[in-house]
């Protein structure tokens, strides 16, 4: 089933989007208890933040586990230096998930590829503002684990997952970063039926996929379209024709949050907008988790694309 949520503040306002997205996702725990993920946009910085994991949450903890992680973490720092990045700091939220803040102005693809060449490494996100955090468990568990309360930012999307067609692990959790593009991420509720076609097509264009999850296609597909010169709105409209299946998905970039519904309107979405904020979710109860009073909401219709800019 899965549940998705998004918030964006208008007029450059910021808020504790870490706490707010946690509340939204926790209220939809019944839609997906397997894993929870957040794509949070903080203020745009000159440095880039790289979120990466060196093992999955449910990997076997054998005798060499910690030693291997430490060795690989050192290797990551070494490779960052070799690519010309200046490492400001590397912080560990868990023993397998890290947040590196670096000065780097080179191409992202070789950087991501070089890091992921380290055994067990998966780059969750790279961006000047975007940070993707995802792990097993409900929203509160993940938020506590990664200290998301107090994360000040402008917009965010999130996802609670009921695993259906791929494993319960961090790779299968949403949101998906649009590798190798800066500051683009997607959450998705639904199934894509032409997943393998698009996966092969995008792989032939040089992209790699971290998971077996169909949702990852959307992120890379959109980023590729935007790289070719389309706006987010145009790319999302094209996706309605080119992606087959039932879906409601949200895409975030550094400045915008978009949502698209397939031509059958098979997956729910409720939307609220006022002068300050746009909030949307699979269920109104998630919006009410941050706006605790009566509000006017509506369901976007089939084949509808809505993009909200900051």
């Amino acid at each position, binding site marked *: 089933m899965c549940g998705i949520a998004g918030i964006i503040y208008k007029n450059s306002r910021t808020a504790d989007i870490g706490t707010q997205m*946690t*509340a*939204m996702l*926790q*209220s939809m*725990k*019944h839609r997906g208890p397997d894993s929870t993920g957040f794509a949070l946009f903080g203020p745009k910085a000159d440095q880039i933040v790289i979120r990466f994991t060196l093992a999955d949450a449910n990997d076997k903890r054998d005798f060499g586990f910690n030693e291997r992680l430490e060795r690989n973490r050192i290797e990551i720092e070494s490779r960052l230096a070799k690519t010309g990045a200046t490492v400001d700091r590397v912080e560990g939220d868990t023993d397998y998930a890290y947040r590196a803040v670096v000065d780097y102005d080179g191409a992202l693809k070789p950087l991501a590829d070089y890091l992921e060449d380290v055994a067990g490494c998966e780059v969750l996100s790279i961006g000047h503002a975007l940070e993707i955090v995802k792990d097993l468990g409900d929203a*509160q568990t993940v938020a506590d684990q990664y200290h998301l309360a107090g994360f000040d930012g402008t917009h965010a999307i999130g996802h609670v997952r009921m695993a259906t067609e791929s494993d319960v692990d961090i790779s299968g959790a949403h949101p998906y970063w649009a590798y190798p593009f800066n500051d683009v991420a997607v959450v998705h509720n639904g199934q894509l039926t032409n997943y393998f076609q698009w996966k092969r097509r995008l792989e032939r264009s040089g992209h790699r996929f971290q998971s077996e999850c169909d949702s990852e296609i959307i992120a890379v597909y959109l980023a590729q379209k935007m790289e070719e010169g389309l706006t987010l709105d145009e790319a999302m409209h094209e996706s309605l024709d080119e992606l087959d299946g039932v879906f409601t998905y949200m895409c975030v970039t550094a400045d915008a949050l978009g949502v698209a519904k397939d031509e*059958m*309107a098979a997956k*729910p979405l*409720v939307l609220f907008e006022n002068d300050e904020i746009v909030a949307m979710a699979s*269920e*109104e*109860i*998630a*919006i*009410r*988790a*941050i706006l*605790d009073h*009566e*509000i*006017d*909401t*509506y*369901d976007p*219709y*089939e084949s509808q694309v809505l993009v909200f800019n900051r």
Partner: protein
Amino acid sequence: MPGESIIKYDARGLAEPLAEVPKISDISGDAATFDAADLTTRQINLELRWLLYESGITDVTVLNPGAKHSIGVGILQRCRIHYKGSLGYFGCGLIDGPEIVIDGRVGWSVCENMMSGVVEIRKNAGSLTGAALRGGDIVVHGAVGARTGIDQKGGTILVLGNAGMNNAFMMQRGRQIYCGDVGHGLGDSMYDGAIYVAGKVASLGIDCVEADLGADDHEFLQRKFSIYALGTPPTFRKFVCGKALWNYDNLEPSEKKLVL
């Protein structure tokens, strides 16, 4: 924390097995009011049942339902319920008799399998409004999502705003009235019943055809608008089943075999 699910389940998956009737209502004669802000779905429903079935109350006002799911399901007697706020998914399903006003929005599948009564929704409604409706009236003052009245078997759905796609899909009986525009596939694979649309129709579904409005139709529309104080009905077009997809005859399957 805000938004946190406070519903607890036992080992078999039963929700809140130890939940008790909160008994927090202010009761005055045959009317009662209670605030649902801090109650779970089960507690709200327990309170409603206690008032309606055990306390002789016939008029209940529920404050702050908070868009929670599955509120007021399975109420099977004549009564009045006023929800001062929005409901989530599956609200007012399987009811038989109540007159309900919702001062807010409702999520997907409101009034699913409703048998009789009246439900008036003052704002928008999600998809699948009145799915498998058997009887009674549903009046939506705002817009509705997709697949309104799917598998409808009776009753009337009146929508003052626009509607999404595939409304009246496999409708078998009853009436749907749309004052606004409707999406693609209206009345797809419908068996029977009538659909009235005042706005634009994006496209008709398979075997849905336009028909002439007769005096009975005008009288029906006038009556419904009058009951709900909606003024003069706009000009409607009528759509019905073309009877090309579904072949009815007078023979039972056993008789058919004999004929063959």
